[in-house]
């Protein structure tokens, strides 16, 4: 009877298209909003992921990566003294002001990494060599920086500009993950970062640490916290801490959650109502099938097949449209759009729920249907 079920579904073109539109819209809305939300969360962690260190050590009261509470310079040696630490290095991180060759100002996120090991360096170098950061006045600038500071014509290898009235020179063009604040990343050595930033009593933003072989980052972070009293987190822990802070302290979670919920409810309402109408309008036919010898179980399987078929098609079209949106509107990293497999699985589960509930309403109606209605003229 699968054949009959599918012919009933596709044959009623108007209801099929209405169902498909509802489920497609629902899927697209959830995937699109979910991807933008997760893109934003990814951006919020870029201060961590761009640096790529196993363990981050910070002030014990730190809430998130952009909320920097400088440490005493001695923190580096204190961390090095913890058993299981293979290396511990200083990291500077802060928002500074860059003055462009044309006189304009631009905010930048300055990152100062250890000059001897260059641990914390960006993953991808597009042009130049990151090792050249050790040369005088050297900085590396990311793709957003190139764009913001005047474009490839004005910013290239050898270009000079100023950070807080200190002249710096571009020795490498790098690729980074955009930040939540959308500031360009500029990398330099830790020492140079200290020299180009205003005087403060403490300037050490973080201590980066790596474990010896046989010690996991989680274990190392636990030991550092227990023995120094400082906050110590693995890259992943720090990332989630940042995400939690943003969800708790901004309206982002509620905003996106509401939209996703709306998509779910709209999908449920349209699918449920249309399926119910579809069933009610075909009651005499379903009654005839029951009279002829189709069991309620068979009719339920037909309804489920119809529901999940249109659900699968709606899911495919919806995900396709959302992806197309991400590829066009989000091309070049202009929009935070990260479509992850857990999100797609989650949406599939949500759609499964929508289809199941919609089917259940119709199946309930069919289960109560008396086949005797077919004899009522």
């Amino acid at each position, binding site marked *: *009877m699968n*054949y*009959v079920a599918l*012919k*009933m579904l*596709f*044959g*009623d073109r108007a209801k099929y298209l209405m169902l498909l539109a509802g489920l497609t819209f629902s899927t697209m809305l959830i995937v699109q909003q979910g991807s933008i939300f997760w893109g934003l969360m990814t951006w919020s962690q870029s201060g961590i992921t761009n640096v790529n260190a196993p363990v981050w050590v910070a002030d014990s009261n730190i809430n998130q990566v952009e909320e920097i509470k400088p440490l005493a310079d001695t923190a580096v040696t204190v961390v090095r003294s913890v058993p299981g630490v293979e290396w511990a290095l200083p990291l500077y991180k802060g928002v500074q002001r860059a003055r462009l060759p044309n006189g304009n100002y631009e905010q930048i996120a300055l990152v100062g990494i250890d000059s001897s090991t260059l641990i914390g360096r960006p993953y991808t170098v597009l042009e130049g060599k990151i090792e050249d950061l050790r040369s005088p006045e050297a900085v590396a600038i990311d793709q957003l920086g190139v764009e913001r500071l005047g474009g490839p014509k004005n910013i290239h290898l050898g270009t000079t500009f100023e950070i807080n009235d200190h002249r710096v020179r571009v020795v490498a063009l790098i690729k980074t993950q955009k930040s939540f604040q959308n500031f360009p990343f500029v990398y330099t050595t830790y020492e140079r970062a200290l020299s180009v930033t205003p005087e403060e009593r403490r300037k050490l933003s973080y201590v980066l640490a790596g474990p010896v072989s046989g010690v996991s980052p989680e274990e190392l972070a636990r030991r550092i916290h227990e023995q120094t009293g400082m906050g110590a987190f693995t890259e992943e822990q720090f990332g989630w801490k940042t995400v939690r802070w943003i969800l708790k302290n901004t309206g982002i979670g509620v905003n996106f959650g509401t939209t996703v919920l709306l998509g779910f409810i709209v999908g449920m309402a349209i699918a449920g109502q249309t399926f119910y109408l579809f069933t009610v309008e075909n009651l*005499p*036919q379903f*009654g*005839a*099938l*029951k*009279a*002829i*010898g*189709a*069991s309620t179980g*068979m009719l339920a399987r037909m309804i489920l097949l119809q529901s999940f078929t249109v659900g699968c098609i709606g899911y495919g079209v919806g995900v396709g449209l959302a992806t197309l949106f991400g590829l066009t509107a989000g091309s070049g990293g202009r929009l935070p759009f990260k479509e992850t497999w857990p999100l797609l699985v989650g949406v599939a589960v949500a759609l499964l729920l929508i289809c199941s509930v919609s089917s259940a309403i119709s199946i309930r109606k069919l289960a109560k249907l*008396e*086949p*005797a209605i*077919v*004899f*009522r*003229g």
Partner: protein
Amino acid sequence: MGDAVSQSPAMTFDNDSAHWLVQARGVTKSFGDGATRIPVLKGVDLEVARGEVLLLVGPSGSGKTTLLSVIAGILESDEGDVRILGASIPDLSSSEKTRFRRDHLGFIFQQYHLLPTLTAVENAAVPLLIRGVPKQDALSRAEAMLGSMGMGERLNALPTRLSGGEQQRVAIARALVGDPKLLLCDEPTANLDGETGHRIVQQLHDIGKQPDRGVIIVTHDTRIFEFGDRIVHMEDGRVDQIQHGHKELR
């Protein structure tokens, strides 16, 4: 109609199941509860022999359709028993009744109830598909059945493209494709013109006259009385008269 030649049969079953296709005894059925309770069947006795075409006639509200539903096992009687092919229908569970209908009964409805998105041949194949017959096999058997009813040129037409007579023939093909022993027809000519109705009832009569089959036709249509081996008149929930062979009564 005044020439009643038979009274209701006795309240015991004749165990000659080789002769009787359907035996109903003391069937009662009411709708509603308490003060609004309406008795529709008030102890109906009825039997259909193998190879017999039985017409069930009577005014609206006399209980014809309810009796048909009870015989088909799609409506529970309050009391009494119905046996078809020796099986006691009230004793069957709901799923057993469904299987029994699937395997032994054929239905023709007044409103046809064809699936609007299925073609004529697909509609006719539905009972076989319900039984799990492979699609191609079911379609070819349905095609042969429709062909035998002069519908060979209209196999792929949707019901909306068929005339009333053609739709009824598709409904008959659907009822017959599974080779049922008992055919239950509810006002099969109600929506047809005289000539088409006559032709269709002739087909039903020919089917019913086969030795191991039987046909029950609920009708108001006096034009088709000549096709009945017996005509059972119902009145106020009871069998009022039974006529044998309409033609010879004239």
